[in-house]
């Protein structure tokens, strides 16, 4: 009996302190989109969300760039998690993230120059986006590559979803357009403040309000079901 108890954990994957509990892959993906959305629940990456969410095209560009960086860096960090010594892990993570961000930035400049110009400094600033370093530290550095990639896609799409909700609302109200196409005809007076910073704060507040209301409702439903 004793030998069995001692050998049992050793046979499995070595235990990593603070590792996320095992879950099926699709859960790793969906968590980032709904229950643990980086913007709406974790409240990370609010700076780029606020800054570039006044046009749907911006949201798409920023979302795709962030997904690319998040997935690539999560994969590499997960693969190398046993090679990277704990003392220099943050420096190494930042180095890996910065490399992929620069790749994304150069590719955007080369093949999507107009988008790259409107996003301006916010593409290089993905380096300091908390979502990416957060996932590297909390997740990718502690699990296998498949889970890390699933999580990267989930968190990335969750970020893009939040971006697109804000972008769509602000562009439609603020410029009367969607993806650059006029929606309401010439008589619509665009609410310009919506595409400026105050509109960003307002939209973000409304989005969090809706999320809070939805969460409360879910909780109440659950309580009713239990009682």
């Amino acid at each position, binding site marked *: 009996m004793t030998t069995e108890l001692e050998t049992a954990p050793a046979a499995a994957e070595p235990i990593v302190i603070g590792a996320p509990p095992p879950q099926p892959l699709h859960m790793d993906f969906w968590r980032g989109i709904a229950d643990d959305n980086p913007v709406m629940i974790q409240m990370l990456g609010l700076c780029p969300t606020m800054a570039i969410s006044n046009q749907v095209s911006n949201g798409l560009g920023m979302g795709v760039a962030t997904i690319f960086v998040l997935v690539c860096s999560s994969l590499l960090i997960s693969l190398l998690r046993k090679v990277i010594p704990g003392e220099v892990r943050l420096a190494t993570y930042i180095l890996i993230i910065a*490399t992929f961000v620069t790749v994304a930035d150069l590719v955007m400049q080369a093949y999507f120059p107009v988008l790259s110009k409107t996003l301006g400094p916010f593409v290089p600033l993905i380096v300091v986006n908390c979502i990416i370093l957060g996932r590297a530290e909390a997740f990718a550095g502690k699990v296998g590559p498949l889970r890390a990639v699933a999580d990267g896609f989930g968190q990335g799409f969750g970020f893009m979803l939040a971006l697109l909700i804000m972008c769509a609302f602000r562009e439609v109200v603020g410029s009367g357009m969607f993806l650059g196409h006029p929606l309401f005809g010439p008589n619509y007076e665009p609410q310009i403040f919506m595409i400026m910073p105050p509109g960003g704060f307002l939209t973000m507040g409304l989005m969090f309000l809706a999320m809070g209301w939805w969460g409360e409702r879910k909780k109440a439903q659950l309580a009713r079901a239990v009682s």
Partner: protein
Amino acid sequence: MSGHEHSHGAPPAAATPDEGSSSARLLFTLAFFGALAGGILAYTYQKTLAPIRKFAGEKVEVAVREVLGAPASLDTLFLVGDKLSRTLPAGVDLLEAEKVFIGLNAAGERIGVAVEEAAPGFAADVRLMVGFNPATGALTGFKVLSQTETPGLGDKIEKDTTFAPRFKGKIANPLKGTKSVTTDPGTVQTITGATISSKAVIKVINKAVETWKPRLEAFAKEGGK
């Protein structure tokens, strides 16, 4: 946790002899990832350099053709010191060299020149391509190359399609702005709600004509065509 406290053996004993080799390993890890990052970036940079430069060049040419009103051909003069020259100075990048584009019509006659110039707007620099006729000082047009003016207000200097045509044929000697409709060739109507940005455009245009007209005249006097 309790394992560390109770067993005096394994963990500390394993940590101490490790420390020496550990710092070498840290150094090696960072050096390795630094080199790897450098390699990836060098490769991407080389692959993307040509399209990035091509786009930058095309953007300038489109702007030049637009402000000069579709010239048949273009000629370029480069600024060397404070004089113009037909040849690009050695060691200067073609895209970064200060230059003037000369637009010629089908008969080879000069219809105007285009230069890039910038001045501070409401937020940061407003950079324009300015086209004018150096003989008369009359403007042929301008195009915004870059600006970070307030969206919805100041950025009308770029987005309001009725603004740029107001400058056509105006004489920059120097050009002035006014809030009302005007037919005076030395005055141009600014945009309501974008007065500072409109004035920045006027400032850039005056600066372009003031700095480049004498240079072109000096070049012509010295026998350059």
